[in-house]
């Protein structure tokens, strides 16, 4: 584990010591070690000396095991120093500590709480890897797991009185599916909405702004909708009220309307103006979805019977696009807006369905045509047979 340029005498012994006094083999991958920093950079002491007395002397600034409470300031001693960081990576931010101090973790740490997260709890210490490394605890795909080490531990979180079901909920969500199952690293994880160093849950008034960073259209429509003021008056957060904050499941058309799975029923009662709009929107969406399904079925049938319907099948993509846009338009909570989108989609499905009917008609026409020519051929065959016999009887 020697590094050619810097002598790090600490490792000569500590690489081979057992357990708590030892440093594992993965230390060589540590980003600090790779950049040429010695153990002394954090622990103090003299890394040049092979004599343990000299290397680990208080006179040389040796700190020994670093206490949790001291960690933020220790890390900040470099990472908040712009001049120093410029030497290693000029594009790295240097405000992490400042942000940390505004976070819930930071504020509690300032008051002396030793249970809250400090730098090493998320980033690791000796096993600290660059965030872009997929093995790093703060790589986007691993962040939720890292946060859950504390936040999913009911006993650990008892003194704070907050729920510990966030990770379990997140695991059911569409975002988790995107990140972990489909590998889309742009999908949101804990830090996307809560921040990383300045970790604070967005307040009720701000949640919509956070979701709006990606879901722009929905947020814009919501802002023009009657729900915006209504929710504000009731102190309800936008987005989260219907979609939940962590357990954001894939939305379905059944969420609209006044049916058993609808979210509208949480506030609206049957017959009130909102409920009427909700039901109208549900009907419009299902009408278009059904029309698309019917068109698909007919075209599929025609294709299985050997007819060429590739053109019409391509066109149904337009109808599906319209349905997608209509589902987004739900957030305007006005069925007249929705109707425009579904009408566009229905116009397309009418055409594709007609194409399917035309294909089936052509199929029938071909068989009828075949039947007619077979009859004509049969006539000829009989006629020829008789003619030949007649010819040869003379």
């Amino acid at each position, binding site marked *: 584990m020697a590094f050619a340029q810097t002598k790090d005498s600490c490792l000569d012994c500590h690489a081979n010591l057992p357990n708590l006094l030892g440093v594992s083999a993965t230390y060589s991958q540590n980003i600090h070690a790779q950049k040429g920093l010695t153990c002394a950079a954090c622990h103090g002491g003299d890394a040049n000396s092979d004599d343990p007395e000299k290397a680990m002397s208080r006179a040389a600034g040796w700190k020994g095991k670093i206490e949790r409470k001291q960690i933020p300031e220790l890390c900040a001693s470099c990472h908040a120093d712009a001049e120093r960081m410029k030497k290693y990576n000029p594009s790295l931010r240097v405000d992490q500590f400042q942000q940390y101090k505004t976070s819930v973790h930071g504020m509690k740490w300032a008051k002396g709480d030793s249970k809250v997260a400090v730098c090493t709890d998320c980033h690791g210490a000796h096993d600290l890897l660059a965030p872009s490394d997929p093995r790093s605890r703060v790589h986007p795909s691993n962040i939720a797991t890292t946060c859950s080490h504390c936040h999913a531990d009911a006993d650990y979180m008892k003194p704070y009185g907050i729920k510990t079901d966030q990770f379990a909920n997140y695991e059911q969500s569409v975002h988790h599916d995107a990140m972990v199952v489909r590998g889309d690293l742009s999908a949101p994880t804990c830090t996307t909405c809560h921040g990383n160093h300045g970790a604070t849950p967005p307040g009720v008034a701000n949640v919509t702004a956070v979701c709006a960073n990606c879901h722009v259209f929905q947020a814009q429509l919501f802002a023009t909708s009657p729900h915006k003021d209504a929710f504000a008056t009731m102190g309800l957060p936008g987005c989260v009220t219907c979609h939940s904050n962590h357990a954001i499941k894939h939305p379905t058309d059944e969420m609209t309307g006044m049916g058993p799975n609808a979210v509208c029923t949480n506030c609206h009662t049957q017959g009130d103006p909102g409920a009427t709009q909700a039901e109208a929107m549900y009907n419009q969406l299902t009408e278009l979805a059904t029309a698309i399904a019917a068109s698909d079925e007919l075209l599929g049938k025609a294709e299985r019977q050997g007819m060429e319907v590739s053109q019409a099948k391509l066109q149904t993509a337009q109808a599906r696009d319209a349905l997608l846009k209509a589902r987004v338009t739900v957030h305007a909570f006005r069925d007249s807006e929705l109707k425009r989108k579904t009408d566009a989609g229905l116009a397309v499905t009418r055409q594709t369905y007609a194409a399917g009917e035309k294909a089936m008609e052509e199929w029938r026409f071909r068989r009828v045509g075949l039947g007619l020519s077979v009859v004509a051929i049969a006539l000829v065959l009989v006629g*020829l047979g008789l003619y030949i016999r007649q010819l040869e009887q003379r």
Partner: protein
Amino acid sequence: MASPVYSVRQWLDERFPLEDIRALALKKKVPVHRYSYWYFLGGMTLFLFGVQVLTGALLLLYYRPGADEAFESVQFIMTQVQFGWLIRSVHAWSANLLIFMAFAHLFSVLFLRSYRKPRELTWVSGILLLFLMLGFGFSGYLLPWNTLSYFATKVGTEIPAQIPIVGRPLLLFLRGGEDITGSTLTRMFGLHVAILPAVATLLIGVHLALIQWFGMSVPPGLQAEWQALPPEKRDIRFFPNFVLRELMAWYVALGLLGALAALFPWGLGVKADPFASAPAGIKPEWYFLAMFQTLKLIPAKVLRMDGEMLGILAFGMIGAVALLLPFLDREKPFNTRRWITGLVCVFLGYMLVMTVYGWVAK
């Protein structure tokens, strides 16, 4: 009475020896015996070839050769052109029927021994025509430029490359380069619509002329019983009696083609993508399956020689034997006929088994 037909006939008669031609035509006779029905197969093959020429010419009105247009033009024919699906499906089905009929005609002539003296050259021209038909099938198959045709051509041109000395130049000639590209398509198109038709027309002309010259053969085994018939019962006139019967057979064939085209239209497939990997279980059309399957089964090395090359050489040998069959049918130093029959039966059985095997194998 001056019916229009009569006056036209008069007009022609004053300029051409119509009566002589008529007399000559009426002389042509077809023997009547137990196996007379096999005489229909040759005319049927010719008829199907005629269907190919007609439907092929019609397809030429809309088809565009070229890697970026071929598939789309066939799609256009199948979806936009009125009855394009019919013309194209008939062309594809008739191609398969034609090759089947050519083989049936070959084997019937073989078992009826019509290749004997003096008809050796008729046989030779016929075998050459069979090779041409296979060439038509191979070249035409690439023209729709879909995945199946692309990879079938890839495999199909790799096989002759194994032949020593001529193999590689042959590959470059067939492909128009190292790989299957638009150049290959152009080349196959030229072969399919110009070169092969020209050669085929010539050979068919020769084949028919020879048939007219020598007349129809009676199988040696039936000679005695046929001679025993009274003269007026031995044959029927070609015009009109045999021709009318052939017309019936041709009409049946037309009906069959129409039914196949309407009930089982030929598919479009997916446009060829040279960068995609070959789909699993790719195999050639049925008439190449036996050969293909045989090559797959031959071990890589046979007695220190390359297995595939041996297989190809073996097929070459079979082709040569087929071509020279009339010259191998002799009585001295020993009667080869029984041997020929036996070997051909074995060969036929082998081809059938291999074709079926190739069809069901994954």
